[in-house]
């Protein structure tokens, strides 16, 4: 059975293809369109999935959309009605936005793919999240927790998943918290208050929290009321996301926490305002963790299960995930590589396969590499044409050279095989550097990533050595498989791992097993043999504001315009020749003549 899953129209859209119960490919639209967080209908991703599997649209048994558009429209309309008359400004925008495209999903899919409308199915948004977490996790039964901004009505759900004998699979979401009470929207509101982009920069708030102390706990707790059943309710007087599109926090929110930061104001941690913003972030982070741990601990008691599968945008919060693992009572915590809305494309396809069509459960390969494969010959050709130094080396020599260059303080971009599905670079589209030196972090920020100084860089470490350097609880390696947990760096290693140790002594570590990315694993071993440790600083191969690179030429142009010293794709290694002068110099002589012709 061939099932295509689609997510679109809100965050980063994506498509995923499941054939006979096993994912064969999945990719976010942004990776192909090169528009960061591209939320448009993912035509490019769909096309790539079908072409790479050698299918025509008519070969598909079903196309599954990751939410129910009319139910979502009902929520938007109801929200506008409840906010009457204060919602008058947001109403036209919301209606145009929704009626313009979002409610016509069935027609859009049918017209683009030319398939019968009865082959187009829908799942609940949180059911797709749950499936993305449970059906990709190597566990027979697990409790399920999903939490994000909002789906149709639900913002958080709890339930359980079971793989029974005979391959029958069941996912039962039993309880939910409904809009407008939302942990995701609480976090997004603080994101906006702190001057960052909503639905994009929430991880910056988490990074900033490391610099603050939770001194504003009592204030932040006024924003969210805890309830006897373990649930929560946002205090509506502090929020405006129901009534305006321009601002999600109210004047009362500002009275409570002080004036907000404008996006162009620098965050100066030495100033009282800068420290207040960091304290806001730290306090929010603390409250979020408290609520999540409480809900998860109750879920553990209710289900009596050892494993928890967690998905939704909130599951991107690695600090909260680590605390969940430590304090909720679950032995293992599974967070998929794409816990956000993009992952729902895969979740929806798997949900349809196992639950709608009742197909027997199949083991899903335990890796995140479902995207386009890098073609190293493209890189070699472009570098040759541009007269850049290119060499073709076998794996052993590549590893030796890269280890040498990294030890010498160079920054290396690394492309290998299929690209990752999800927001993290997990070793197939990464930038590597030595983890020791704090100055490399500054150089990365200044010459390549061009991002805020307070944001930490992550390490990748071999599974065998992980506990030597990082203080992880039991089950921590699993959580760190997709870089989903933040753990303390052992005190004796902090100064020697300064480039990857956050100000609070933690790191968002990726624990790598050889089977997941053998070439990267071999590189880590080569770095250890070179006299170092089997750890590298691992950051995504992109520049701020751009999606992670997918194809070789995107890697090449990023390499050429940034401070990366070496680019490796497959067996091709390109180093940087010192610039001989701008191309424009060669053209300046013809400028006058050309301009007069024009």
């Amino acid at each position, binding site marked *: 059975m061939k099932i295509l899953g689609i997510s679109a129209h809100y965050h980063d859209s994506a498509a995923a293809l499941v054939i006979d119960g096993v994912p064969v490919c999945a990719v976010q639209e942004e990776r192909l369109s*090169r528009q960061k967080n591209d939320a448009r209908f993912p035509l490019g991703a769909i096309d790539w999935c079908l072409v790479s599997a050698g299918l025509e649209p008519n070969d598909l048994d079903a196309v*599954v959309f990751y939410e*129910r*558009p*009319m*139910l979502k429209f*009902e929520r938007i309309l*109801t929200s506008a*009605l*409840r906010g*009457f*008359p204060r919602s*008058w400004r947001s*109403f*036209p*925008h919301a*209606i*145009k936005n929704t009626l313009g495209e979002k409610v016509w*999903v*069935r027609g859009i899919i049918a017209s683009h793919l030319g398939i019968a409308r*009865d082959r187009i199915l*829908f*799942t609940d948004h949180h059911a797709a999240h749950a499936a993305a977490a449970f059906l990709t996790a190597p566990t027979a039964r697990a409790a399920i927790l999903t939490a994000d901004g909002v789906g149709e009505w639900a913002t958080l759900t*709890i339930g359980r998943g079971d793989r029974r004998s005979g391959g029958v699979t069941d996912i*039962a*979401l*039993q*309880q*939910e*918290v*409904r809009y407008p*009470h939302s942990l995701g929207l609480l976090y997004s509101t603080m994101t906006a208050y702190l001057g960052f982009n909503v639905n994009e920069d929430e991880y910056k708030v988490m990074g900033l929290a490391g610099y603050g102390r939770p001194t504003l706990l009592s204030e932040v707790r006024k924003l969210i*009321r805890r309830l006897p*059943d*373990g*649930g*929560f*309710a946002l205090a509506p007087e502090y929020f405006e996301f129901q009534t305006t599109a321009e601002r999600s926090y109210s004047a009362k929110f500002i009275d409570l926490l002080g004036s907000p930061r*404008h996006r*162009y*104001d*620098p965050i100066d941690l030495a100033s009282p305002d800068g420290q207040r913003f960091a304290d806001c972030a730290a306090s929010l982070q603390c409250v979020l963790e408290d609520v999540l741990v409480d809900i998860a601990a109750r879920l553990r008691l209710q289900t009596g299960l050892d494993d928890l599968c967690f998905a939704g945008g909130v599951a991107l919060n690695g600090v909260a995930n680590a605390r969940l693992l430590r304090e909720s009572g679950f032995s293992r915590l599974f967070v998929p590589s794409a816990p956000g809305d993009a992952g729902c494309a895969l979740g929806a396809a798997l949900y349809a396969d196992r639950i*709608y069509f009742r197909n027997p459960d199949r083991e899903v390969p335990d890796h995140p590499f479902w995207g386009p494969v890098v073609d190293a010959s493209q890189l070699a050709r472009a570098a040759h*044409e*541009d007269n850049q130094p290119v060499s073709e080396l076998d794996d052993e020599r590549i590893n030796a050279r890269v280890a040498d260059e990294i030890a010498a303080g160079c920054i290396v971009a690394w492309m290998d095989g299929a690209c990752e599905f999800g927001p993290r670079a997990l070793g197939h589209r990464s930038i590597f550097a030595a983890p020791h030196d704090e100055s490399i972090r500054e150089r990365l920020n200044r010459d390549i990533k061009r991002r805020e100084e307070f944001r930490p860089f992550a390490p990748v470490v071999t599974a065998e050595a992980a506990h030597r350097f990082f203080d992880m609880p039991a089950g921590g390696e699993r959580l760190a498989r997709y870089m989903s947990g933040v753990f303390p760096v052992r005190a004796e290693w902090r100064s020697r791992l300064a480039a990857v140790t956050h100000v609070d002594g933690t790191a968002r570590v990726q624990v790598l097993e050889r089977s997941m990315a053998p070439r990267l694993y071999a590189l880590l071993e080569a770095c250890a043999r070179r006299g170092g440790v089997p750890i590298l600083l691992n950051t995504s191969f992109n520049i701020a*504001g*751009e999606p992670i690179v997918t194809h070789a*030429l*995107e890697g090449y*142009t990023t390499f050429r*315009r940034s401070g990366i010293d070496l680019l490796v794709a497959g067996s091709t290694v390109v180093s940087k020749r010192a610039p001989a002068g*701008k*191309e*424009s110099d060669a*053209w*300046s002589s*013809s400028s006058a003549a*050309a*301009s007069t012709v*024009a």
Partner: protein
Amino acid sequence: MAAVTHSAPLDRLMRPLHHWIWSDRDRRLRKLLTFADVETDGGRDILRAAEVTPDPLLRRLYLEHAIDELHHGDLFRDRSAALWRARSGRRRVLLSGNPLPGGHGLDDLKIEGEPDHRLLAFLHVAEKSAAGRFAIYRELVDDDPATREIFEEILRDEVFHMNYTYTQLARVAPHSYRRHVWYARAKRLWNRYLRVAAALAGVAGNALLALMYFVVLPPFAWFAKRAERREAAGFLSVSRGRRDAAPRSQY
């Protein structure tokens, strides 16, 4: 530079409007923020062109052009940030962006699948027009040397961009390059018309929906608020109906 950066008649006619915009610090700041976004988006589009063109020389030129545009975006952004920090009345809401929809980078043009001659013609016309307008802006910000310096630097780059696009257009389409330039000018005009039309339609749509909001919605709003008061917060059971919702249902 003056010879190649003369402004279009329309821009010269609109000089009083430009003066009005640049004479006020808030409007100036807003304009710079818009430029920052447009230059950055345009830079990314040209970068995409560098990635998809089969022509090695064009790839190098596009890459350099893209680096320039992204740098311009950074210059405008940094200057905006400096002006923002220097503002006295910070409480005022600062609208960002252009009231007209579209106009982001090269969004009028689909990079993939677009032949190089069409892209070059489009870039040439766009760069020439931008250079003319920036020349006016440079004169209007005499009171602000830092901003003026940015326009000076960008104008130098625009001359290169104008010239290489034209020279390369003549290379890749030696028999039809003039036609392509005229076509690009006509298309640009048409796209401007579409943007204005879309903006007007948007305003009309908003007005209609706002009218509907106040005329049709009040009774429904009353019911919705009444129902909201009865709703419990916290955990709610997922109803069996919800759990068993039909796969084909959009509800």
